[in-house]
């Protein structure tokens, strides 16, 4: 039996320097419940260190949380890396730690980079600035995410900064990606006229940095359950699973 799930595939937590201090795991899950989100992806800049706590709280609240990060590749293209399995997340974190360029964060300027527990006690602070790029290309990043069983999605491809379009001019027809994410403020007519949906499935996320934005842009997924494996099937339109069109009002 296939169902429609509401997924916000791009959410920042308090760990992102630009993320609001209100974006604690408890607040994120509270917000997601209020907005009837079934699936949430925690995607902080170049770090997975906050997603474990959110995954646990989400599990308790009946909301599926995929962990991962919004990585910044060598080309300075932001891309979402999504995983379900903690072991894969741990291994991906080691890869990020290896390739993140070491530039010290200035919290006064860029913002705090702490991760917290379910009661909002600080568990740790990342001293390296997380918004810089890692020393791995888009292609190398895609390979690593796939090696670990994850899903790789270039983020907000239509944006004027840190996107496939801004950095590399256009979407190569053979782009190594599982889907392409459209930014929250994209005009539907513009996106449809570009034909990106013919290259890869288009998905949306809120790119929320503060609680009120969470869930304001979602992707509807037709799947059996909320596992990442089902999402992979939906991305390939296997056995009736699919990603519903972003701007289709008829979602049945």
């Amino acid at each position, binding site marked *: 039996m296939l169902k429609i799930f509401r997924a916000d595939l791009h959410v920042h937590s308090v760990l992102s320097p630009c993320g609001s201090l209100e974006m604690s795991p408890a607040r994120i899950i509270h917000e997601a419940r209020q907005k009837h989100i079934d699936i949430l992806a925690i995607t902080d800049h170049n770090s997975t260190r906050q997603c474990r706590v959110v995954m646990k709280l989400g599990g308790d609240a009946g909301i599926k949380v995929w962990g991962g990060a919004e990585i910044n590749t060598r*080309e300075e293209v932001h891309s979402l890396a999504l995983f379900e399995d903690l072991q894969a997340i741990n291994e991906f974190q080691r890869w990020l730690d290896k390739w993140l360029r070491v530039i010290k964060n200035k919290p006064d300027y860029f913002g705090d980079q702490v991760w917290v527990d379910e009661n909002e006690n600080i568990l740790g602070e990342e001293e390296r600035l997380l918004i810089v790029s890692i020393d791995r*290309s*888009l*292609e190398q990043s895609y390979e690593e995410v796939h090696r670990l069983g994850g899903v790789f999605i270039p983020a907000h491809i239509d944006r004027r900064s840190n996107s496939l*379009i*801004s*950095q*590399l*001019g*256009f979407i*190569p027809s053979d782009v190594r990606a599982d889907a392409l994410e459209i930014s929250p403020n994209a005009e539907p007519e513009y996106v449809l006229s570009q034909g990106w949906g013919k290259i890869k499935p288009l998905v949306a996320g809120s790119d929320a940095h503060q609680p009120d934005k969470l869930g304001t842009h979602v992707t509807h997924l037709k799947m059996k359950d909320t596992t990442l494996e089902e999402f992979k099937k939906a991305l390939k339109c296997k056995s009736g699973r699919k990603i519903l069109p972003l701007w289709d009002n008829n979602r049945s």
Partner: protein
Amino acid sequence: MTVNDIVHKLGLTVFGGEKGLDREITGGYVSDLLSDVMGNASEGDVWITLQTHKNVMAVASLKEVAAVILVKGLKPDDDTLAQSNEEGIPLLGTELEAFDVAGKLYALIKSK
């Protein structure tokens, strides 16, 4: 001045696109945002960049630039190199940073 002239005068590495070494150079453009290059580079420019993705050659071909120089000792991706050969647009390299190679290229072009 041809691409071959600047290869010799600036000691550049030729990665690929040798067929285009006799192309005429009329100016230069420095940018790492391919969307910007698509909008602003001119035919006959030497394009100086740190991007190594194969889209570089597609944009180089679209804008009909004379050649591309990769800075800081960066090497092209394999498919970038293949496309350079296919398009016949020289893909060059230098150990210098963009500022330095652009300054030297500017001086060469202006001295003509």
